[in-house]
């Protein structure tokens, strides 16, 4: 269940501007990695490209998950490989009941003749909502419609808990959260932590990493990974910022 990214280049379709300029990254099964870096450096583009957002086009390189080629698959089949993207800006969908949607999504990833029994679904939903301290009515509302920023993030984590992916990419799942909400979101991630689950956390604050200790931290600058180290790197970045790594990137030297 390893995610392997090799020399990945991607452009914005509409403008042709290259955002990912040769990303190499491996996230082995059972590990949690974080990607940090300054704004506009390609972190979100990387996560969206892995999932297949149609505005980006891969021009070079490969992405493999569990030995399977990812890039040739439509978005839903990437999900069916066990990949999940918790989005920075999840879409709001009018008229679609949140709980109905989650149940449909779970069943879409199961064999057609084996849907999750309704009672089991409800039980799991209630457990996970309790874990995330979400109000009951959140699942009766339309999907993300009128949700606050924090509610949206929590709803992404709820979907992750319900879908039980093998790999979760969480794109700035911590942005806009107060400290209590951050703690709860972290609790959700830690809940899935185990030998069969890996995660890639995209963030530019080390705050989240105080609650979810990553196995590895990668620093991304200008479309490339320039540094990979253990969790202690977060403290260094917090103290010194990214200037050093921006310098390294400009000089074309990777550590």
């Amino acid at each position, binding site marked *: 269940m390893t995610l392997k990214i090799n020399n990945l280049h991607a452009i914005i379709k509409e403008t042709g501007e290259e955002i990912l300029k040769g990303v190499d990254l491996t996230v082995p099964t059972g590990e949690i990695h974080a990607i940090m870096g300054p704004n506009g450096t390609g972190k979100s583009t990387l996560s969206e490209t892995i*999932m*297949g*957002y*149609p505005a980006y086009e891969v021009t070079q390189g490969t992405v493999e998950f569990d030995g399977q080629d990812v890039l040739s698959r*439509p*978005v*839903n089949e*990437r*999900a*069916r490989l066990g990949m*999940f*993207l918790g*989005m920075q800006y*999840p*879409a709001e*969908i*009018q*008229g*679609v009941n949140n*709980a*109905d*949607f989650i*149940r*449909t*999504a779970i069943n*879409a*990833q199961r064999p057609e003749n084996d849907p999750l029994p*309704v*009672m089991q*679904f*409800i039980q799991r*939903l*209630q457990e996970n909502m309790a874990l995330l301290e979400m109000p*009951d009515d959140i*699942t*009766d509302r*339309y*999907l993300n419609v009128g949700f606050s920023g924090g509610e949206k993030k929590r709803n992404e984590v709820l*979907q992750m808990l319900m*879908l039980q992916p093998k790999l979760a990419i969480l794109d700035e799942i911590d942005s806009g959260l107060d400290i209590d909400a951050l703690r709860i979101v972290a609790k959700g991630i830690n809940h899935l932590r185990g030998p069969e689950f890996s995660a890639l956390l995209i963030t530019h604050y080390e705050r989240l990493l105080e609650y979810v200790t990553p196995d590895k931290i990668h620093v991304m600058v200008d479309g490339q990974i320039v540094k990979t180290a253990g969790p202690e790197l977060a403290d260094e970045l917090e103290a010194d910022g990214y200037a050093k790594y921006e310098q390294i990137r400009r000089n074309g030297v990777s550590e």
Partner: protein
Amino acid sequence: MSDEAGQQAADKAAIQEFASQHYQFGFHDDIKPLFSTGVGLTEETVREISRRKHEPDWMLQIRLDAYHQYRQMKLPAFGPDLSQLNLDQLRYFQRPTDHVARSWDDVPQAMKTTFEKMGVPEAERKYLAGATAQYESEVVYANLKRDLSRQGIIFMDTDTAVQKHPEIVKKYFATLVHPADNIFAALNTAVWSGGTFIYVPKGVHADAPLQSFFRINAENTGQFERTLIVVEDGASVNYVEGCTAPVYSEDSLHAAVVEVFVHPNAFCRYTTIQNWSSNVYSLETKRAEAEAGATMEWVDGNLGSKVTMKYPSIYLRGREAKGTMLSIAFANGPIDQDTGARMIHQAPHTHSTIISKSLCRAGGICDYRGEVKMDENAHGSSSHVECDTIIMDDDSSSDTIPYNKVAIGDVAMEHEAKVSKVSEEELYYLMSRGLSEEEATKMIVMGFIEPFTKQLPMEYAVELNRLIDFQMEGSVG
């Protein structure tokens, strides 16, 4: 969430209930011999219709006046192309018959498949497809529900009402929709047959929705139902008609007239779902008036036909009267849905809302055509119009054509119109959770019409969802 638990069971129950509601109409065996006035329309045809129905002279006079008016009138100068509609080739009246329009083997496979996918019961399928004996121009009823009559509510076909309650019919008939209003109103008034009559006495609340099913089946049968609803002071009623499943007809005209009178502080909701087969012209005139403090609501779904022209109106005649129109139009294939609403504010502090949702694909046309009028007495009134369209491919089209007329200054009018494709962002989001593009598209479309669906009785909502679900199949590459 507890709703979720019982959803499947509820679906099943709804389908069963739906089936039994159809059976309760009990198409009995003593079928009368066929009678038809034949092809075409003359003054003698009109007299013959009235004679067959043993109508009082005043109704004959209304018919004849309308007939002569009709002869002077022209087809509408706006909207869809009606040049293929040959009014001289129609049969204007026929009695119930055991005539079978066609055998089950001749029913198109697409229609059979739709019934299958929607879970329409076996017996019902043949009936809807025109492959079993059926009644034609007259509404067939179950026995009048006992609790209705106990409450003093009159619920019967309009022909019977002319015989049994002439004083009420005479007082209201054709006073809201004048024959001179448009050619199809004139035609209907001349040759009308069947339709629903409802009278709710002062202060009486009809608890359950009153339901009726209209079908058209025989070849070239013009259908001219005439519906009259009177809701007295402080009373309320909820009337539901139509059918979500496709209803077969040979090239045919459906030109109903509906008049609804909502007296002071009364409430009426009139829900229609129509899914005529792809050769039917549905050209209807529906009009309501709401007096002081009264509320009138149209809930109107148009899913099929060849051409639909329908603009239900509400005349807000008394202070603080309210009018609402909630509609969906679905043009799937070579269908022209020209629909909308008219809100005529004639009293102070009246309020109207029009919410129109349209979906078109595979060459379908959905045009919204609506009018909001505030006359010089409409001080402090307001109107809100929302038109939302999803165009699913490049072959389909949609237009919004609003007419607003305001005679005074202290009123508020809002009009929002949005035409869009299925959002790429939304598709991506749903697909990232494992839904195929087709499943994601369906979910977005169902969500789009949800404000409408949730207002329907459950069995209609279940059927509508299944219908759209099925019709969206194969909608994405």
